[in-house]
């Protein structure tokens, strides 16, 4: 049934939202810092995928990996060169830093790639699968499931490994973490690398099924804000659920109201959240 297809499609895209939003919320929780350029990290991931396909002819695994590595490096550089220096300063500097970065990345992409909408040439993931009577494009299914797996993996990394616990320790209490011998600076750099990598892979996964242009960064960034607010400050599990829900809401809005309204409903939801439940799904009142 068409509605079920829409729902499944929405959830699969939502899994990708969850992936890139968990990085954003991790940084927010760790450093009380919102990355206004996060959407651009996703957008860059998409272009990395394009470049890999065009230059190296690689498949999804290759360009997914490439996006992860490239964005990880970018994330660390951005942290070391910019973020680290503004976190102790005035709010204006903090917000302008990543906001300016977003503009820089976005318009550089416009300049290099032009405003044309592009998409990846058909990859090995063409075609449609029939899953329990629902027709799902293979590409979307693979992308969504991969995103879900990676997001869950991120969660287990944070809660189950030593390195992950160190990251969480810095988020919880910076000074206490220092007393335990953890270097907050290093952990924060790692967090930025991970968050950017997550965004990059999410972008690469989306590139498989959806066309894009440099302006998508702005939309993804806003979507990420809504997801992290809905999911609750600093909560990766929250971002996971919220991503799925937002993806679903968006798909249903597009289905019932038309494609223009898919973003409008999500932004409207954001305003409603701020009014009535700013702590989000899992947050405490």
């Amino acid at each position, binding site marked *: 049934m068409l509605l079920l297809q829409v729902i499944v499609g929405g959830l699969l895209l939502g899994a990708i939202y969850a992936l890139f939003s968990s990085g954003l919320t991790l940084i927010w929780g760790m450093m*009380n810092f919102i990355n206004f350029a996060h959407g651009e990290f996703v957008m860059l991931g998409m272009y990395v995928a394009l470049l890999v396909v065009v230059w190296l002819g690689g498949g999804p695994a290759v360009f997914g990996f490439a996006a992860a590595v490239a964005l990880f490096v970018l994330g660390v550089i951005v942290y070391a060169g910019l973020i680290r220096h503004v976190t102790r300063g*005035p709010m*204006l*500097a903090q*917000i302008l830093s990543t906001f300016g970065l977003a503009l*820089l990345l*976005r*318009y550089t992409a416009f300049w290099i790639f032009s405003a044309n909408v592009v998409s990846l040439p058909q990859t090995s993931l063409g075609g449609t699968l029939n899953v329990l009577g629902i027709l799902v494009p293979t590409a979307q299914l693979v992308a969504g499931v991969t995103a879900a797996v990676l997001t869950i993996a991120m969660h287990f990394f944070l809660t189950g490994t030593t390195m992950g616990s160190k990251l969480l320790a810095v988020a919880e209490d910076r000074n206490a973490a220092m007393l335990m011998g953890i270097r907050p600076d290093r952990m924060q750099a790692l967090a930025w690398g991970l968050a950017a990598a997550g965004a990059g892979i999410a972008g690469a996964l989306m590139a498989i099924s959806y066309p894009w242009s440099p302006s998508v960064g702005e939309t993804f960034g806003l979507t990420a804000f809504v997801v992290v607010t809905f999911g609750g400050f600093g909560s990766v599990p929250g971002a996971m659920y919220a991503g799925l829900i937002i993806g679903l809401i968006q798909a249903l809005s597009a289905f019932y109201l038309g494609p223009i309204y898919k973003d409008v409903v999500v932004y409207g939801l954001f*305003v409603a959240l701020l009014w009535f439940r*700013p702590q989000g799904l899992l947050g405490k009142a």
Partner: protein
Amino acid sequence: MKAAIAFAVIFILYPFVFSNAFYLDIGVALLLAAISASAWNIVGGYAGQVSVGHAMFFGAGAYLPLLVYHQWQLPPIVGVPLGVAVSLVLAVVVGLPTFRLSGHYFSMATIAVAELIRLVVGTIDFLGAAIGLQGPAVGRGWYDLTFRGELPYYFIFLAVLTILLLITWLLQRSRFGYYLRAIKAGERAARSLGVPVRRTKLYALMLSATFTSIAGSLYAIKTGFIDPESGFGILVSVQMVIIAALGGAGTLYGPLVGAIILIPLQTATNTWFGGGGTGLTYILYGGIIVLIARFEPGGVHELWYRIAPKFRKRADAA
């Protein structure tokens, strides 16, 4: 005081010295940019609440005059107070819930709402949809404010800017102004001294919204055209922020100085590199904002006081 008089003299004489249409155009654009940025400055600079979606107020102020003309053939100027009214409502919708939360929520909300409005307006035929609205091609009388030359606009804008700067100056010296600065400098401490933080931020936003709306109205009346992108687009918000921050957010003349630096620069780069969304101008904007944030958040104003000690009004202990 001396600075004010100097600025006033220069600005009054400018159009007579540079009477060429090209330079006059830059002058008008500069004044308009200074008005918007100075309006933003009240909430973003003085109170430290960084709005990156101020276009919502600008667009509201730009749409209403052209709307009342387009739909009911009223003089555009009638739409100016309407634009202010709409902007005040938006200010409350955005500010009231977010000012009790940390600063990031406010900033995120401003982008989201500006974008929301831009998208929605583009779908509503009554508001011109994606095509936009136009003003009177030929004025029916003086009240339509359709002047053929730029000169009358120049002086109207100059008058509005002067009034805004005067209000800002009075604000700076008032209890409200001190409270704004205290909020920026340390909200927790400000609270402990009895500053009604949430209410003060909201009033600042409402005042800022009012003048941003007026700036939008001036723009629409002069240009005679508005569409979702030129009214509510992100670049409108960006320009306000960068001009204020470049000159010195939270200072009286910062936004004006920023406009003096940036508008001629922008005209130059647009000519060299090509304007619009794909031009290098916006890469430059992004870069400038990052540099300001990283190295000198106080903008040119702070930079000036750092490298020119003899002009320092406040002595700092060595």
